[in-house]
């Protein structure tokens, strides 16, 4: 069923793509069906396992090895890879978020992208992403997990770059992809090391294995895995790709960049928590990077006018909070992670969707241009307020519960005299104040603020002027608003049904820690230090909100060059520059110089090998010396090769080089290699025809005689190339080589039984060495494209010697033409 669900998303993506959903009014509802079905299935399956109260565990069905369901399919057995899925508390939490929020986003997309011709394509990418994400959180094999991890990177690239005619979308998609896929490579290395060192690739086995932290390679594994998780979850110093990815259409932002994909890193950290967390390196790296991310995100969020950018930085900061929580090992911290993840999905998702609705209805989403939306978009405003207050962490909403449980867990750590607890608490309180500030800014500026007449409010230099409430250009359809409404309703209801929900929370937190958890969350804790911290943070937040213009101004003074995107762009530019320098150093000489470099480089290994080999060993087996017919052939080859070089006319050279080729073909015939002979003969024919085609049209050769030095160099290179071939053949046919193991016997013996073919050469080409052939035909394809570009370029038609640029073009042309004789 788990694999079938993943498959269902892949198939429904294709169906939606073929359906042309932009033409059908019911497509939005249809697209919500598969995610809803999977949500329902998950709920039904997991319901017996959710003991609602601590005492009623007798009712609770027992987990098998801590899992609700597990499935395994063999895949690449030779590599120990299997497609194994496992549904436990944590996977269930993520699975429900993915499919639940996914259903709302799928419905929403149809209305957001109405009249968009490429809506089907978006659905295809979106559903492929859903499938990857579900596979990622359900995977029970490190390599399976990685495959789906990469799947999310690729599909998110497609989703971010959906508006491919906008430079911002392309840049954002590229940056996001480079960062997450680069981290993915580190992750792959880390996962393989982890699998090799622990002896198993099955995640549930690895996490139940004690003593992983004592492995000598453990720090390396940890750093690599953290790199993967931090890049995916936009932790400092990789946080900047997330705001850049806001160029994506809003449904993608809401889904990928708040509810699901960025949580993949958090999921990975939580998944491997029992195995890796018992190490100071884990604690400190998560604490430091999570703390910095949390503070940085929340502070920078206040600065932004763009609704989506503000929300993006808010997301960065919330991801920092979750990372910081995962640094700790206490039950309270794990529970706070679970609550935080769900709460965040239920308020940030709707907020993004609201931003999309506003953008869609008003044509702008800049806070500076919007005012008083509560009059024009009342339902949307209600959604925004409920979600925004939850984001601020004000009682009695779900965000408050999440914040309380997180402060509580930090206090728990701090009470034990733990320095880390105090650090986390301080950072969380400071970030909490900014949470309040940006949530209030978001709500006030766009929705609640009365029509701003006071121009003096707009003191920020360069900021757009605030105007009267923008008239609704395009009223949102009811289902468009319904999607965030449903999500926010779930989020608002959650704190009041904490009793039934707590079984779900403890199940999820229990599967992070690997043991049963007896703590519960509640809306009201009494007057605890956490509550006082919270109150102080809220008060501070209100003060910050009132002074937000001052804050914005001081933040804008931050120099541009230390921003992540700018630094990254600079790094990329440096790489391009380096590539150009390298190309300039190694390319662009005349054909003779260029081929001299290549040929001499080929000769070097032979020369090195010659120093280590006694020449006596190279003597060929004297019993197979050439007979009379071969001797004639050899003489013919030598003579015609000499004639090729010395002959004065081009046609003569072409003919004699044809003779060389045919003599070589005859060698193949004598030594019974018909395949090689055929290939060589055909190549000779085509080459001669080509050369005749080109060379007969060339003007007569009037070059000045070659310089002595160049002649000498050419002689040297020719000798080296000849020696290269000569000694290579000698090595191969020497007694030493023949006595040792050769691979020829293997091919001869296995061609018919293994390769089903009697022509060994062909079997080697297409079966035994198919990878090599694949590489070769890829090279051919690239060469064909290059040749096509050069030979069919319009600039070839231009007269020479008019401009320097054309000189270059014709020079390239000349190279192409002369290298034609090699092919």
């Amino acid at each position: 069923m788990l694999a079938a669900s993943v498959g269902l998303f892949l198939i429904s993506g294709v169906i939606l793509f073929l359906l042309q959903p932009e033409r059908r009014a019911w497509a939005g509802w249809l697209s919500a069906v598969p995610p809803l079905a999977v949500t329902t299935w998950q709920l039904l399956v997991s319901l017996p396992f959710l003991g609602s109260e601590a005492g009623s565990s007798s009712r609770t069905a027992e987990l098998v090895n801590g899992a609700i369901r597990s499935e395994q399919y063999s895949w690449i057995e030779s590599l120990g890879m299997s497609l194994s899925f496992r549904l436990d508390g944590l996977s269930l939490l993520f699975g429900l978020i993915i499919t639940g929020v996914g259903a709302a986003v799928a419905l929403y997309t149809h209305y957001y992208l109405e009249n968009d011709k490429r809506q089907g394509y978006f659905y295809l990418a979106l559903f492929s992403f859903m499938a990857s994400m579900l596979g990622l959180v359900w995977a029970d094999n490190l390599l399976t997990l990685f495959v789906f991890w990469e799947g999310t990177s690729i599909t998110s690239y497609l989703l971010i770059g959906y508006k491919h005619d906008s430079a911002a979308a392309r840049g954002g998609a590229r940056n996001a992809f480079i960062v997450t896929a680069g981290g993915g490579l580190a992750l792959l290395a880390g996962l393989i090391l982890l699998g090799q060192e622990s002896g198993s690739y099955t995640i549930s086995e690895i996490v139940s294995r004690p003593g992983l932290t004592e492995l000598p390679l453990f720090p390396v594994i940890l750093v690599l895995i953290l790199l993967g998780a931090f890049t995916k979850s936009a932790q400092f110093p990789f946080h900047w790709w997330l705001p850049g990815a806001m160029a994506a259409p809003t449904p993608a932002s809401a889904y990928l960049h708040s509810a699901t994909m960025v949580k993949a890193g958090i999921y990975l950290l939580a998944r491997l928590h029992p195995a890796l967390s018992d190490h100071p390196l884990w604690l400190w790296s998560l604490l430091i990077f999570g703390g910095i991310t949390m503070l940085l995100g929340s502070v920078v969020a206040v600065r932004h006018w763009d609704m989506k950018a503000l929300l993006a930085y808010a997301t960065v900061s919330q991801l920092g909070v979750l990372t910081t929580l995962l640094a700790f090992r206490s039950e309270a911290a794990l529970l706070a992670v679970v609550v935080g993840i769900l709460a965040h999905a239920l308020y940030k998702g709707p907020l993004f969707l609201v931003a999309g609705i506003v953008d869609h209805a008003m044509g702008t989403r800049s806070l500076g241009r919007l005012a008083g939306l509560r009059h024009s978009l009342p339902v949307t405003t209600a959604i925004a307020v409920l979600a925004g207050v939850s984001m601020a962490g004000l009682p009695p909403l779900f965000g408050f519960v999440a914040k309380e449980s997180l402060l509580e867990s930090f206090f728990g750590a701090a009470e034990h005299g733990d320095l880390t607890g105090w650090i986390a608490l301080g950072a969380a309180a400071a970030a909490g104040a900014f949470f309040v500030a940006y949530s209030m800014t978001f709500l006030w500026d766009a929705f609640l603020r009365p029509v701003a007449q006071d121009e003096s409010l707009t003191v920020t230099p360069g900021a757009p002027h605030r105007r009267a409430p923008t008239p609704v250009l395009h009223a949102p359809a009811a289902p468009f608003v319904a999607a965030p409404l449903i999500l926010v309703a779930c989020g608002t209801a959650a704190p009041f049904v904490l009793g039934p929900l707590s079984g779900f929370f403890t199940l999820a937190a229990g599967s992070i820690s690997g043991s049963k958890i007896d703590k519960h969350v509640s809306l009201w804790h009494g007057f605890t230090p956490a509550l006082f911290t919270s109150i102080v943070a809220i008060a501070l937040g209100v003060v910050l909100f009132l002074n937000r213009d001052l804050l914005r101004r001081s933040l804008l003074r931050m120099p541009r060059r230390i921003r992540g995107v700018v630094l990254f762009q600079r790094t990329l530019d440096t790489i391009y520059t380096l590539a150009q320098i390298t190309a300039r150093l190694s390319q662009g000489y005349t054909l003779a110089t260029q081929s001299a470099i290549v040929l001499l480089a080929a000769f070097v290994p032979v020369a090195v090998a010659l120093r280590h080999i006694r020449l006596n060993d190279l003597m060929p087996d004297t019993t197979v010396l050439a007979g009379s017919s071969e001797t004639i052939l050899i003489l013919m080859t030598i003579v015609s090769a000499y004639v090729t070089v010395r002959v004065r006319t081009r046609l003569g050279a072409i003919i004699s080089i044809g003779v060389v080729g045919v003599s070589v073909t005859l060698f193949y015939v004598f030594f019974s290699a018909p395949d090689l002979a055929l290939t060589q003969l055909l190549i000779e024919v085509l080459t001669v025809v080509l050369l005749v085609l080109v060379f007969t049209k060339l003007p007569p050769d009037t070059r000045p005689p070659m310089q002595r030095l160049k002649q000498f160099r050419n002689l040297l290179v020719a000798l080296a190339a000849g020696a290269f071939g000569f000694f290579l053949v000698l090595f191969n046919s020497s007694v030493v080589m023949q006595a040792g193991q050769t691979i020829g016997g293997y091919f001869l013996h296995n061609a018919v039984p293994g390769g089903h073919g009697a022509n060994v050469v062909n079997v080697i080409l297409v079966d035994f060495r198919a990878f090599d052939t694949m590489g070769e035909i890829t090279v051919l394809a690239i060469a064909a494209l290059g040749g096509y570009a050069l030979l069919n370029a319009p600039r070839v038609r231009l007269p020479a010697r008019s401009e320097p640029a054309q000189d270059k073009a014709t020079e390239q042309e000349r190279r192409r033409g002369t290298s034609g004789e090699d092919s």
Partner: protein
Amino acid sequence: MPELYLRLLNRILTPVLLLLALFLLVRGHNLPGGGFIAGLMAAAAFELQILSRGHQRVRRAIGPYLNSGIGLGLAVAICSGIFGLMEGHFFQGKWFEMNMPLLGHVEFGSPILFDLGVFLVVVSFATSYLLGLSRISDGAAFRSEDVDLPPAPDDARPNFSVETDQSSKESAS
């Protein structure tokens, strides 16, 4: 205008060469032949066409398919590897055997498909070069005054300077 004998020969030889290419491709797994050789053979057939009927006609007939032929060939080759991936390894051979009514016992496997991919790439590659070069050589009636080039570096061959009125020439011919 190409010579008469070439045009007459072409009528007979081109189908023969193409059939030969097909024959070499099909039998390649057990007897001399295979995708690479068959591709070159087919390219030779197209070259004959180019020589006898002019490159414009050939270009009009098959030109648009060449670049996509390369892509298709690569795709076919890669797809043939995926059959093996399901069993265990990328490019691991996978074979089917069956008894066909006319042909008798037939074996068909993913390496044959791979060979087809090689064939497509090679024939498209070679024909693409042949077409491109014959266009150049057709248009490139080199002017004698272009020969005294600026001192060419090294072993440079005389410049490929192409006549300006080439396009008009092309349309005329």
